[in-house]
Each structure stands twice: as structure tokens, then as C-alpha cells.
């Protein structure tokens, strides 16, 4: 029967002069290759993976209707139109007429929230409809941000529609006056 001699030199019988002493192995293991491998894997995972799980945002577009009588009507007092222009500027007006004096104003994406909240508080919730009209200079980020604003402020009724020529001209004029290229 063979057994591992754990007694070492202390205690036990003395070995004869011809018997070789078993070399005591060090218990320390060289960990360098292990660390190397560990960090290699870390770098691999950092580069090939993504941290944040993407989320999905619902977007329901209205069906195109040909007949004007099928279209939803918006009360003038409840309509709030947001126009997305160049350089992350939002233009907005209340009611139906953008050209009436003092009605057509601009805001940034930071300040537009206050305007939406103000409109929401001052309007009958049944009537409030926000109309989003991105111009052709707006970016996708602007569009998502403004749709997000609807979720953030819990606007129940909003629609994304095309910008009209009159409005686009107004945006252009305002941009030219503000020096936005």
C-alpha cells in the first residue's frame, strides 16, 4: 500500500544516507497565464457585446383617408402644432393659424416640455390634440425625441403628419431671421 508522506522531516524515522529526500514542491502556482487569459476574455467580451438591451417604441400611424369627411376633426382651442426644424429647433403654434401675430414661436427640445405642459394644463383634456409635423430638415432623433415627449407628458392624442407649404415657409423665414443655415 502506498501512501503520501505528509510528515516531512519533522518526526518519524530518519532515512538512511542512500535514500534520496523527496523534493518538497512549492504550493504556489504561477498564475500569470491564467490572468492573461482572463483579461483576454474580458477584452473580447467588452468589444463584441452590447450592454444595453434595445427597447421598442410603439408608433401607430393613421391610415390614409381619401375623403375629407372621414378625417378626424380637431377643435381649434385644443390644437397644438409642433414643427421640427433644422438644428434641433422646435417651432410651435396654437390653434389653426400659424400666421397670426405672436402665435408662431420657437423653442428647443429642452424648453418644449414646459410649453406642452402649459398647453395641457390650460386645455380641456378631451380637446387637446398635438400635431407633430417634422420638416424635411429634421432628423430622426428629433422625431423620436418629440414622440417621446408625448409619452413623457402623457398626451393621449397626438398625430404625426406632413408639414404644409405655408408652415414650411414660416419655418424657413424664421430660420433665416435667426441665422440658422
Amino acid at each position, binding site marked *: 500500500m502506498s501512501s503520501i508522506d505528509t510528515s516531512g522531516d519533522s518526526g518519524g524515522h530518519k532515512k538512511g544516507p542512500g535514500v534520496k529526500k523527496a523534493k518538497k514542491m512549492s504550493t504556489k502556482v504561477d498564475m500569470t497565464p491564467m490572468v492573461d487569459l482572463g483579461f483576454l476574455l474580458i477584452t473580447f467580451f467588452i468589444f*463584441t457585446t452590447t450592454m*444595453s438591451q434595445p427597447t*421598442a417604441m410603439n408608433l401607430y*400611424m393613421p391610415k390614409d383617408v381619401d375623403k375629407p369627411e372621414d378625417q378626424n376633426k380637431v377643435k381649434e382651442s385644443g390644437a397644438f402644432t409642433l414643427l*421640427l426644424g433644422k438644428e434641433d429647433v422646435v417651432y410651435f403654434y396654437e390653434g389653426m393659424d400659424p400666421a397670426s401675430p405672436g402665435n408662431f414661436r420657437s423653442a428647443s427640445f429642452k424648453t418644449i416640455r414646459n410649453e406642452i405642459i402649459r398647453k395641457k394644463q390650460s386645455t380641456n383634456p378631451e380637446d387637446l390634440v398635438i400635431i407633430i409635423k417634422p420638416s424635411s*430638415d429634421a432628423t430622426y432623433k428629433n422625431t423620436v425625441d418629440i414622440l*417621446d415627449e408625448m409619452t413623457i407628458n402623457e398626451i393621449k392624442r397626438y398625430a404625426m403628419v406632413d408639414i404644409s407649404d405655408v408652415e414650411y415657409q414660416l419655418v424657413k423665414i424664421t430660420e433665416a431671421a435667426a441665422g440658422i443655415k
Partner: protein
Amino acid sequence: MPSVKIKKHAPDNDMTPFVDVAFLILSFFMLATKFKPEEPVEVTTPNSVSSTALPEKDAFMVSIDKDGRVFISLDNEKLKQTLIQSMNQSRGLGLDAAEIRNFVKSPSVGVPFTQLKSLLSLDPDAENYETALKAQAGIPCADSTGGELTLWVREALVAYSGKKLNLLIKSDNNTKYPSFKNVLNAFKQNDQNKFLLVTSPEDAPPGTALFATRQNQVDGKK
């Protein structure tokens, strides 16, 4: 004078804590992250407060890069096969079996019909394959009928008939709105009006109506 003896340190220091930390970080990355999906172009999605998880199955994804190039990708290989075969017949693309297999394997495609054959005939091991993928022109969809993207959507809907197809739109922050509108238009031509926009998660800003609602939900659960 008694001289101060400097203790000699062993040249090998104990690496165990170091290894512990390394493997801790490693396991964190393995569990907390997910592999990046293969994409020919890089698309940085905007943030939104939306918390709906992205559906992983039955997705028809349209990616728009910052220059407005449009790519499509489907996750189900079997349906991809059906899609490309009917497309091959109806549009007379003249693809052979190997090219169809290539289409099924490739993560996304973004070329007009005329260039599809030459793209799919490329050898994936060839040196210029990566550059060819990056140089794809995008699926044309700029006209009022939605262009070729409309046809792709129509065929995909046919291939998916009976099942719910999730229509995902993934677009870059700097994509101009008209490119996005063209894609919406192509879907609208097929009477599809419900979309999912791929975004990165973000918290609701404090002090807003949504923030209050979510806070109430959390408190209600407790």
C-alpha cells in the same frame, strides 16, 4: 552603527486577488451583455423612455443609416428562404441555389434588385467582401409608391401570412426625416400602420407626468 536591514521581497507576488477580480469582471460581462448583432453599417439609435422590450422573434427590421440607405433583415431563415424564392420568381432576379443560400445566411441586405445577384454571388471568404457589404447602395424607396421596399414588405407579409410580423424600424440619430418618411410610406402602401421603433432605454425625467405614473406603479407593487 546598526545598519537597517532592508527586507528582501520575493520577486513573485501573490496574484490570487488579481485573478479573482479578473474573473469577476469576466463573469459580469458574460452575464450582463449580449452579442452585438451583425450589421453592415453602424446605426446609433436615439434614446426613449419606452420600456417595451424588443421582440426577438418574427421581426422584419428595416435599418436606415445616417445617409438614408435602407437595409432589410429578417430573423427567421425558413421564411427568408420562402421570401427570396418568391421574389426570385416574381421579379426575375435569376438567382441560383447558391445565391439563395447566401441571401438566407446574410444578416441584412440593402441593394436594388438589379445589384442583388452580383452582391449574393460574392464569396464570403473573399478579401473585398467586407467592403462590398459596406458599399451597398440601399434599397430604393424614395418615390411615392415606396419603391422596391414596398415589394419586399409585400413579399415578407405573404411569406408570413397567418402570423404576426413585427415591423421594426431602426434608424440613426442623424438620419434625415424624409428617409424615415419614405420607409413609413413603403409600409403604408401595404396597409401596415403599426411599427416598433428601435431605441435605447432612458429613464423618465423626474417631475414629469410619466415619472409620477411610474413612481405610483412602483409604490403600488410594494
